[in-house]
């Protein structure tokens, strides 16, 4: 009896998967326009194949992704989609405001138990990317998010883009403010690296159910990538140093 016959005869079913949800919350205020939003679009496009590769190797975790844009208010940019089917459509940045509070409130609505169920999932990963200060009620957004069980359990990572981002405000969003305060992406290379790290390496840690040595309930985050130059690379001028 060959394998196919055997599998058919046993009545084996598809293995049960835990769902890992990854959310990208993108600031589309006008100050993000130009290079910054271009880099965000580029980074997300680049990271998708890596996430798909990871997903193909993992039969027990289903990764779903969803993106939100916020500026004047907040709205979902995509629906929740299995990573293997996910395609990124570029976002533009031209909003006159930075309604981060609205984004967090919308995130809270997504993370209700009615919506996601009571469990058998992995903690979601939420990546908040912003270059400015919230222009609406940020505090109440945070409160709403943390009022949800899934929101409290989420790995919440903030990426502060450029020099004007309000890192103090973003710090309140972070799930592990001590070890992972807002990542300051002060150049294009750092921005791409941090989006990649937060999306790929962090979700790997979550799906591998890593736990720290201490007794706390914080998922240890993998180390941030160091800026390295590959051995054998041409040592020309570093073109990623432009101020933006």
């Amino acid at each position: 009896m060959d394998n196919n016959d055997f599998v058919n005869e046993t009545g084996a079913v598809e293995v049960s998967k835990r769902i890992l949800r990854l959310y990208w919350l993108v600031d589309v205020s006008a100050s993000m326009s130009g290079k910054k939003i271009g880099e965000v679009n580029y980074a997300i496009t680049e990271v998708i194949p890596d996430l798909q590769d990871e997903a193909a190797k993992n039969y027990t975790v289903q990764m779903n992704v969803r993106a939100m844009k916020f500026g004047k208010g907040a709205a979902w940019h995509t629906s929740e989609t299995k990573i293997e089917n996910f395609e990124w459509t570029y976002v533009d940045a031209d909003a006159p405001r930075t309604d981060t509070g609205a984004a967090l409130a919308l995130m809270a609505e997504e993370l209700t138990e009615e919506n996601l169920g009571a469990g058998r999932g992995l903690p979601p990963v939420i990546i908040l990317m912003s270059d400015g200060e919230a222009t609406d009620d940020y505090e109440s957004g945070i409160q709403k998010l943390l009022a949800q069980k899934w929101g409290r359990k989420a790995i919440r990572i903030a990426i502060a883009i450029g020099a004007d981002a309000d890192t103090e405000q973003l710090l309140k969003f972070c799930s592990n403010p001590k070890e992972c305060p807002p990542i300051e992406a002060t150049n294009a290379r750092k921005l791409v690296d941090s989006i990649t790290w937060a999306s790929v390496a962090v979700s790997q840690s979550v799906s591998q159910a890593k736990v720290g040595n201490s007794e706390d309930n914080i998922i240890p985050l993998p180390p941030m990538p160091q800026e390295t130059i590959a051995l054998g690379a041409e040592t020309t001028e570093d073109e990623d140093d432009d101020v933006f």
Partner: protein
Amino acid sequence: MNKKPKQGKLLTNGFAIPTIGGVDCVVEELLGKGGQGEVYKVNIGGQHLALKWYNERTRTQALKTSLEELIEMGSPSDKFLWPIQVIECQGQFGYTMGIIPAGYESAQKVQSPTVKLTYKMAAKVCLQLVDSFRKIHAKGLCYQDVNFGNLFINFQTGDILICDNENIAPHGRSITGVIGFQGFMAPEIVRGEHMPDTQTDLFSLAVLMFHLLFIEHPLDGARYANSIMDPEMVRKCYGSDPLFVFDPNDDSNRPIKGTQENAHIFWNLYPQFVKDAFTQVFTMGLNDRNKGRPLLQDWIDVFRKLQENIFPCPHCGCDVVYDTHIFKQTQQISCWRSSCTGFGQKLQVPPRLRIKVGNRERVIVLNTDTKLFQYQMAREPDFEKGGKIVGEVVRNPKDPTKWGIRNKTAETWQFVSKSGETKDVSPEKALPLSASVKNIDFKTATAEIRI
């Protein structure tokens, strides 16, 4: 089909690293990346190898020394993708190993909907795995990082390959800082009470084999159906309060019906002696790390016994296991396939040979292609020597309706015939398979035939 070669972050494609042997190691493309570094396909003097290159956090002098020791020691068997050479460049380093040959796939594929191990495959894979661990433990080392990602299986032949061997280290020490992979680590490691050692290897190996046979995780069942797997729950599930999904005395953590159905399906397919070994490690063995876990030799016995008790269903030809536990309970062995006419029916079981070595007894089902092995006839701790063929089931050329066991040893076997006469079976002669054959003497073992 020409795919653009993938570029890594640590080494540039095309870069030639000088090696001690004088031949350059030329980087061709990125094969994969992980927490410790990246793996590249390289070309050294026309030979393609894999080069694992460590990132800054991982490359330590201790790791380099350990790798050099492993290389010096040499591969314990051809089942390991063993480190070949340490390659250094500008204060960084990595090591070369063979590339996983075509036909081998991640063991994790058993979790895909289309691939499962048959009884024969499961026994073959697990025996190689257990024997490989025996070879490591015999050198005072332990594997430390048992998980699905490190095992590759050729699902056509059942051959295995074990990779990522650089975490192999002396009992109780961790060179790379790797203490295991969540879900595979022994509870005492999850609880922070122990470093990896041979006892924790025994646990992790059992988790891996449970996954191979029963697909789901042995500790993650209904208790966690409504939990978000945050560190608190993970620690409870795998460390502080583990409960076997098939615990005979507590059914509160059974695999979730429907969701984790595979575990129920495959658990029901296996004979009691296989289930007993897993039950032992995941009940007693959760807390009693010294005496509760089946030893490698115990697992070898379990999977050899599985091999010895498989026979083809006379109705459909699929493999069925002669499970003495079921036979004693129900007086019959049935086919497990619901579509077979032998389903729920009493099957005609082939003749069995009951062999006694000292006070140890084993029953072997005699199929038309059954071979007898050295380990069945004598106390033989060596796995390879034990695999030597000492007898084989053959048809009587003069009367094709009759069968026998050909003596493939240099000794003369004896038996007592129906008339009470002692008869010799010289080498290359065959012992008749008949109910009237009594008091078989294989010299190192005695036996009787059950028909």
